[in-house]
């Protein structure tokens, strides 16, 4: 995926600019994408940022099949969570119906599901090991 590669390159260059003592690599696979169009907008969070609006890192991934992959490098090992949505119509927003319910697919790491709101940090968090971690999220 060309766009994925370019985002990786961007992220990599950023990370190279800020070398970290114990940098680890996180690969996130997103599977089960229904429509091969638009963009997966993915945010990476630590516990402090999870409930806020600003992710600590992120990627916008062009969708050309039922899956996309992104790798974040230079992360400190520890606990992270992912929130993502599929911007099917590429309007840069997570669209909602007139009553405010999302009309575009969304997901959380661990395939965690919310209960009248986003999935909790406790349900969505996973561990990034020092030797790297691959985490797969399935949209449904």
């Amino acid at each position, binding site marked *: 995926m060309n766009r994925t590669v370019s985002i990786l390159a961007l992220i990599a260059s950023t990370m190279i600019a800020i070398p970290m003592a114990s940098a680890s690599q996180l690969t996130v696979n997103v599977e089960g994408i229904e429509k091969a169009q638009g963009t997966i907008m993915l945010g990476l969070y630590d516990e402090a940022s999870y409930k806020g609006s600003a992710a600590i890192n992120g990627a916008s991934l062009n969708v050309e099949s039922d899956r996309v992959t992104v790798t974040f490098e230079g992360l400190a090992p520890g606990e992270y969570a992912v929130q993502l949505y599929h911007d099917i119509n590429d309007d840069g927003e997570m669209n909602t119906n007139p*009553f405010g*319910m999302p009309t575009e697919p969304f997901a959380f790491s661990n395939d965690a599901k919310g209960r*009248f709101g986003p999935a909790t940090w406790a349900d969505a968090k996973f561990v990034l090991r020092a030797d790297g971690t691959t985490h797969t999220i399935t949209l449904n």
Partner: protein
Amino acid sequence: MDVSRRHFIETGAGLGIVAAFGAGSSAAKTPSAAAMPDWHLGYRTAPPNGFDPATMRLVYGAAPQDLTGSLYRNGPAQLQYGMEYASHWFDGDGLVHRIAIEDGRAVHKARFVATKKRREEQAAQAFLAPGFGSLGDDRYSVQGPDDVNAANTSVLMVDGELLALWEGGSAIAMDAETLATQGPKTWRDDLKGMPFLAHPKVEPNGRVWNLAVGGARVGIYRIGTNGAFEDFGLVDIGRAAYIHDWTMTARHLIILVQPWVNENLRPPVAAGFEWQPQHGLQMLIVDKDDFTQQRWAQAPARMFYHTGSAWEETDGTIKFDAVFYEQPVLGVDGGADEIRGQWTDPGPAENGVLTQVIIPPTGDARLIETEIVGEFPQVDPRFRGKARDLVALASGASAQRPGATGLTVQNWRTGQAQSFEFGDQRMVEEFLFVPKVGGSGDADSWLIGTVLNLKAQKSEVCVFDAARVHEGPVCIWQADYSWPLGFHGTWA
């Protein structure tokens, strides 16, 4: 009431008792069934896979030769897991029935609507989802209304597509022949997951109108005669009134804003209702061609679940029929006790009364209250939105058990009503008008509906002549088994 006719029907159907006990009815297999009152049969959980096609037996009368089609019905049918009961009747999973009638033969089948709630609760064999009467299990995920959709209230056929309806989430598409679930219906991408009320209004030409209720904001759907989505708009009704049904003339939508308000629609929904009679019953009248053209009308405070239909006189006066209550019923305690086999006669204060509402072009609305106690008012589909004479409803109340005992047809033009009383041994459900072939007036109709025969412990489908309801059923088909009571249906 025709006593001799009723006696004959009782005697004839009574033959079924021997067969029921002889075959070992499903009641005997339910641990708590023996201690239950006979009417609890109507609240018993259906088999997990529904009912395979089975021919019903003609136990009374002769089937009308021109009656060809299918009676589809929906109702909550999973009311118990092990020793645990559902928190509210309204929370049971929808079981969609099809009674196909052709050449005098009736074949029944039924399938549960395979919602997320249904699938996960079946897998766990436990109630998990939050709902009308339940807070739900913390482990059950809820990411949108369809995650708690029980799909248990009614059915709609649009251009050959069968939809199972609830009121807080999407309509669920089903195969009209096999009753296999296809999934939530999205009318337009930006309306995904919007509620679709269980009481859509169908014009005689087939155009469908319906509401999406979200607190004080109400969406309006318009769907073409070919099932294609046409339009959606929003109106503001001022407060989060409970809206289960509404009504419509040829030119206007009438949204009844009853003073039964729920500002917090979080489960359990039933806990959030507040009766605010000081507001009265307000009605928002919306022009079907321009949703911004609105006017309000005011009536005394009443609670309601169901309307019949509305029409407009030449001077702009609007008339419609509905079943009105002096105070809320079934909301908090009602609907929870019955499924546990508990019931006490609530008395006349909780009876629904057939009422005609007259809204003059200006000024307050007037109520004409009949003495007819009942529910599930229905009119001839050829006259929806138009002036007509008749409204039919399941009528009467028993001091012994919940539910209706008879069928009544009120003629608004003459002021006369005709009734047939089945007595305490049958629980009477909604009856639908089916126009007779070649007829033109609303009296030229069959009335078809379901009845639970407590004596035989079997479900029945009854047909009446709308012009001669007092003479009793024209025919009765009886299943070899019973299925739980339901809510609403359609004829297709």
